[in-house]
C-alpha cells in the first residue's frame, strides 16, 4: 500500500509554534493548488522559510500529491541541501535548486511558489510574455521577471542566474516552463500566484481570438501599477483581499488533515 502522509505522527510538539503555523499555512497552500486546478501531479513546489532560521526552509515530500500534503510531512532543508527532518520521502532536486536560489538571494522573501499550469506554461512560451490587458494585469506591468529555460533545474549553477533574473521582482515567468511568485508571507505569494494564473488564462482567451484589442495607455498602466504597489506595500494590506483564512476554513471543512 502506498504511504499516506496523513498517517505520519504529528511533529507539532517537536517544533516551535511559529514553525508549526508556517507548516499549516504551507500545507494549505499545497492543498489550494489542486483545488484551483493548478496542480501537476507531484511536480512543482512551494517553499517557506522556517521562522527564526533564515537559512532553513520547508518544501514538499516528493511523491505526495498536493491534496495529501500535511504540516508534519513537509521536509526541512538548509540552503546547502542537507535534509534536517526525518521522513520517508526525498526532496525534488529541481525544487531545491529553484527555491534555495530564491530564498537565499532574497532575505525579504518568506515563501516561493512555482506551478506548471497550462495557461502559465503557454504564456511563458510566447515571446513578449504577459500582455497588459486588464486591471488585474497591472500588478505585473513592467513588474514581471523572466528567466530563460536551461533544462531541468538541477544544476546549482542556475541558482545565480535565477537570482539575477528575479532581481527585485516578486513574480517571474520561467520561460517554456511555468510561473513563479514569492512574497513576504505565505498568503502574499498565494494571492500573487492566483492573480498571475488568472491573467495568463485571460490572455490566452483574448489573444487566441486574434481580434483588435482595447489597449490601455502606458500612462494608465504605469499609474495603476504604482497604485497597487503603494496599496500592497502597507503590511497586511492584502490580508482581506486574499481571503486567506476563509480559504483555509473551507479546506478544513472538507478535510482538515493538512493541519496534522
Amino acid at each position: 500500500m502506498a504511504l499516506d502522509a496523513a498517517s505520519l505522527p504529528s511533529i507539532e510538539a517537536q517544533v516551535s509554534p511559529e514553525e508549526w503555523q508556517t507548516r499549516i499555512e504551507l500545507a494549505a497552500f499545497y492543498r489550494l493548488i489542486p483545488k484551483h486546478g493548478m496542480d501537476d501531479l507531484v511536480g512543482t513546489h512551494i517553499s517557506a522559510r522556517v521562522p527564526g532560521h533564515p537559512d532553513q526552509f520547508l518544501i514538499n515530500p516528493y511523491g505526495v500529491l498536493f491534496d495529501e500534503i500535511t504540516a508534519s510531512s513537509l521536509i526541512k532543508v538548509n540552503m546547502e541541501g542537507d535534509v534536517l527532518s526525518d521522513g520517508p520521502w526525498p526532496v525534488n532536486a529541481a525544487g531545491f535548486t529553484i527555491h534555495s536560489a530564491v530564498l537565499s538571494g532574497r532575505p525579504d522573501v518568506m515563501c516561493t511558489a512555482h506551478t506548471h499550469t497550462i495557461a502559465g506554461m503557454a504564456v511563458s512560451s510566447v515571446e513578449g510574455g504577459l500582455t497588459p490587458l486588464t486591471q488585474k494585469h497591472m500588478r505585473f506591468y513592467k513588474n514581471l521577471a523572466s528567466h530563460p529555460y536551461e533544462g531541468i533545474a538541477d544544476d546549482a549553477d542556475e541558482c545565480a542566474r535565477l537570482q539575477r533574473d528575479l532581481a527585485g521582482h516578486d513574480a517571474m515567468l520561467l520561460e517554456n516552463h511555468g510561473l513563479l511568485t514569492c512574497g513576504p508571507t505565505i498568503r502574499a505569494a498565494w494571492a500573487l500566484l492566483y492573480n498571475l494564473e488568472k491573467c495568463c488564462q485571460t490572455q490566452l482567451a483574448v489573444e487566441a481570438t486574434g481580434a483588435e484589442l482595447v489597449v490601455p495607455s502606458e500612462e494608465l498602466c504605469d499609474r495603476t501599477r504604482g497604485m497597487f504597489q503603494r496599496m500592497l506595500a502597507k503590511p497586511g494590506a492584502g490580508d482581506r483581499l486574499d481571503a486567506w483564512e476563509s480559504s483555509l476554513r473551507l479546506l478544513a471543512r472538507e478535510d482538515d488533515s493538512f493541519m496534522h
Partner: protein
Amino acid sequence: MPLDLSQPLPTIDVKAAVSPEEWEARVELAALYRLAARHGMTDLGGTHFSMRAPGPEHHFLINPYGLLFEEVTASNLVKIDVDGNIVLDNGFAVNPAGFTIHSAIHMAREDLVCVAHTHTVAGMGVSCLKVGLLPMTQHSLRFHNRLSYHDWEGVATNLDERERLVQDLGTNNNMILRNHGLLCCGRSVPEAWRNLFALEKSCASQLQAMAISKATGRPIVLPSEAVRQGTSDKLEERHGKATVSRDWPGQIAKLDREEPDYKT
C-alpha cells in the same frame, strides 16, 4: 501574526435586528454569492455584489470583506450607506473602495435592486475586445442593443468616475467594464443573476468561437439583424414581466439541500 481560523460569527442577532423584508433580502443576496461561487465567478476577496436594503433609508447590503463567497451568509452581509459607512454593525468589515462602482449605480438607478460585478476570465476577456459582445448566440441576443460599455480609467476610487459610469450605463441594466470585467444589475436578485449567468456564458462561448474562427479561417455566422432584434425583444418582453425567473426556485432548492448555512 498568529493565524486565526475560527469562523467569524456575527456579534449581534441580525435576524432579530432587521425587518422580515430585510431578512428575506439578505437570504436572497447570500444565495447569489453562493451561486456565483458554484459557477466559478469568484476572485478571492475581490469583486462584490450589492443590494438595496428594503426601506426608505437608502441602505445597501454587501459582502463581508475578507470572506470568500462560499462563506457569505444572510447574517454576515454588512449594511452600509451610500458612502460605504456601516449602519448596522454585525462585527464584519467592508471594502469601501470596492463599493465605488456599486454606489454610483445605486444612487442613479432607483429601479435596480441588485448590482453584481465579476472578474471572470471570460468577462475580462471580452472586455478587452474592441468589437465587444457579438450578437452570436441566444444567450448573447438578450443583450443585443441593451448592453453598455464603460472605458477603463484605472482602479475606480475616483468619485468623478461615478458620473461617467452612470452615463455609460444609461437605461441599460448590464455593462462591460472595458479592460476590467462585467457589471450586471437587476430589479431583483434573481434578475441580476440571470443577467450575470447569461452574459458570462455569452462571453465564454464568444471567445471560443472567435478562437476557432481565427485558427481555421471559417467565419463566425451571426443571425440576421431581424432575428437578433426579434429575439432580444421577445426575451425582454418575457423577462420584463417577471422579475423572478423559472430557474431561481430550483437553484434555491439545491442550495437549501447542499449548503443551507447560507440562510443563517
